[in-house]
């Protein structure tokens, strides 16, 4: 089952294991410059609000009700990253493992393939493994490099869906999670003595819903997507759960939901000039996947804009991050690269 708790999707599989619980939330963040330089990881600026589409049936396109799922608001050219968490299993010193497939506009963000049921390792792995993969910020375009998820209106030609399939049909994000089989989990992790050590007006578009957004490839960022360290047969494909996450333009979020959307995030330049930290993640125990040719062949938002004679990303100045905080595998549960407003804007006190 999937529940919506405090703006996070919570996938639980009590029929597999009581601790088989995965959470996925959607973090607001800076849009990194789309200038073909490689940037470190930007911070999390808090969760996007997420709502059931059924609660706003009168205000959303009919197709959204057919798809079911949830919706969230994004400004045009705003970026997002996915934050994964799974529950610690008592006496086994590990969170429960999951295989998670992520697509945007039904195009796989890891393999670049169009939608297929199930998960696959051939010809290319098309999922990430949690907890090994703590975050996903974009499309896997090269070994160790992703292109950031950036919201663009569906139908304007920028989205990954339109670039790969030539169609503007689905938009949004699609997430499918499979837990590890219980017997495999118990064999692999035996019990032991516990040692817990532009924010601009929407572009005209030609699709059914003028407010529908898709995700497009933005700037380049250093982030590894890891090879599955387990066997494909270890995943319990009989107990998958999936969710369609619709994206609506923040400019119309109030009309749709009656709530104000979050404020616009700072630009990369404003953030960097304020001396705030960027992040690098190190995990030398897992192997990064090679990038995908189809995804690598896409034009970034700026490249596509140049081709069209548009300027789709305002405030796209290059920056040189001065404060880069290294994060290593082995963070405690709940520790993310999260910006905490309650704390001072001191890099030492930003939650890591």
């Amino acid at each position, binding site marked *: 089952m999937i529940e919506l708790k405090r703006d996070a999707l919570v996938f639980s599989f009590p029929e597999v294991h009581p601790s088989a619980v995965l959470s996925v939330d959607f973090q607001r963040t800076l849009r990194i410059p789309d200038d073909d330089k490689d940037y470190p990881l930007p911070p999390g600026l808090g969760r996007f609000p997420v709502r059931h589409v059924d609660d706003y049936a009168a205000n959303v396109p009919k197709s959204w009700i057919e798809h079911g799922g949830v919706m969230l608001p994004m400004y045009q050219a705003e970026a997002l990253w996915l934050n994964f968490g799974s529950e610690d299993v008592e006496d086994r010193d590990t969170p429960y493992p999951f295989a998670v497939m992520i697509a945007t506009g039904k195009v796989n963000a890891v393999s670049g393939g169009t939608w297929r049921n199930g998960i696959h390792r051939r010809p290319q792995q098309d999922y990430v493994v949690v907890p090994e993969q703590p975050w996903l910020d974009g499309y896997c375009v090269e070994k160790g490099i992703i292109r950031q998820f950036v919201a663009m209106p569906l139908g304007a030609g920028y989205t990954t869906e339109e670039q790969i399939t030539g169609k503007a049909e689905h938009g949004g994000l699609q997430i499918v999670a499979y837990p590890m089989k219980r017997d495999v989990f118990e064999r692999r992790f035996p019990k032991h003595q516990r040692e817990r*050590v532009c924010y601009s007006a929407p572009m005209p578009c030609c699709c059914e819903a003028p407010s529908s957004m898709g995700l497009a490839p933005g700037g380049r960022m250093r982030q590894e997507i890891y090879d599955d360290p387990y066997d494909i047969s270890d995943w319990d494909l009989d107990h998958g759960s999936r969710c*369609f996450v619709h994206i609506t333009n923040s400019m119309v979020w109030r009309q749709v939901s009656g709530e104000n959307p979050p404020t616009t995030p700072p630009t990369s330049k404003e953030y960097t000039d304020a001396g705030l930290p960027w992040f690098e993640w190190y995990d030398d125990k897992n192997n990064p996947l090679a990038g995908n040719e189809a995804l690598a062949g896409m034009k970034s938002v700026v490249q596509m804009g140049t081709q069209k004679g548009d300027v789709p990303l305002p405030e796209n100045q290059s920056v040189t991050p001065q404060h880069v905080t290294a994060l290593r595998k082995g963070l405690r549960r709940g520790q993310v690269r999260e910006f905490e407003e*309650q704390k001072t804007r001191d890099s030492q006190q930003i939650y890591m």
Partner: protein
Amino acid sequence: MSEPFGQYLRQKRETLLKQDRAYTVRKFAATVGVQPSYISKVEREEVGPPSEATIIRMAEVLHEDPDVLLALAGKVSADLRQVILKRPRLFADLIRQLKDAPDHALLRVVREVRDGQW
């Protein structure tokens, strides 16, 4: 669940402290943003439970469910209060009717995200 807030807080913090020195009273207080002496008083039940915002911060640091900590402190979170105030009679009735229901019956009323045709 019926133990006092301060006792519960101390037990959770000390459990984490066995593995991580970030959970001494001093460091825990600094992370939460209060004085160490205040934490000691709360844990000894010498003062009443902290404000909602502080309890939520404590829950984050201790990796606890904020609703559980708020309930132990005899509080209801502001978002839940708003929900109840919109339909107070209905929610009061609902909670009273469900008070003795077993967990599996309660889980049936938990709302799932609906999947449709893609």
